[in-house]
């Protein structure tokens, strides 16, 4: 048990690994497009966490810069992806990812 005011670096990484795997699980076992999308966001967050942890470990800003970029890209992705989801729902009246299996209906 380390002293109270110091967190082992690896714990952060373990946490991010757990979150990432949770995201993967969500992606694999959920059928709702939106939920799947959110699982992707969860994975991104997990990666961000390890980025920031490493930037702390290496005493460099770059990790946080990458996190920043990841966030921006995630925002863009969310905008477009949700728009796509809207369109899909309009065209097929379903959000189940297994039914959306052909490019044209």
């Amino acid at each position, binding site marked *: 048990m380390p002293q109270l005011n110091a967190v082992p670096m690896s714990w952060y990484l373990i946490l991010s690994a757990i979150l990432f795997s949770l995201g993967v699980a969500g992606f694999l076992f959920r059928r*709702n497009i939106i939920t799947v999308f959110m699982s992707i966001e969860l994975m991104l967050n997990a990666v961000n966490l390890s980025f920031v942890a490493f930037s702390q470990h290496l005493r460099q800003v770059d990790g946080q810069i990458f996190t920043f970029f990841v966030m921006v890209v995630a*925002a863009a992705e969310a905008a477009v992806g949700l728009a796509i989801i809207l369109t899909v729902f309009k065209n097929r009246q379903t959000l*189940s990812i297994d039914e959306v299996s052909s490019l044209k209906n």
Partner: protein
Amino acid sequence: MDLILFIIFATIAVACGISLVVQKHPIGSALSLIGVMGSLAVLYLLLGAEFIAAVQLIVYAGAIMVLFVFVIMLLNAGEETIKGRSWPSRLLGIPLLTVFLGLLAYLLQRMGPSMGTVTFGAFNVGAKEIGRSLFNHYLLPFEVTSVLVLIAILGAIVLARKEIDKCLN
């Protein structure tokens, strides 16, 4: 102190993550994702990344997830229906996932001890440093990202304009 905070918020994060996966209703997943993000923001603070923590709240929790919730409400997405099958995910999903986790755990425990510990305030990065490095060293990626965002905006408008109008009135 740090350790306690870390444990608290890590637990919250993991719990929310699990609930994201197991929640029946998308809104539930969305809220649990927000929970994850919030606790991650706190962890960022612990890691001395104030700016990133704030941006995490603003961008992720404040903008992206609002969009998610908005869309979920808009489509009034209900409980998900068991229709269609994906044999690969059924057969390979669980084993692959376990193997994945195992490998990650192995690698981590191998590199873990050499990593040392994090104490709060050891290395704080404020907005100034981020900005400096962003606008000097990472200027080109920044500009490119801005273009990407512009494209995304256009695409979103083109894709969803009619739908949103229709659903709003």
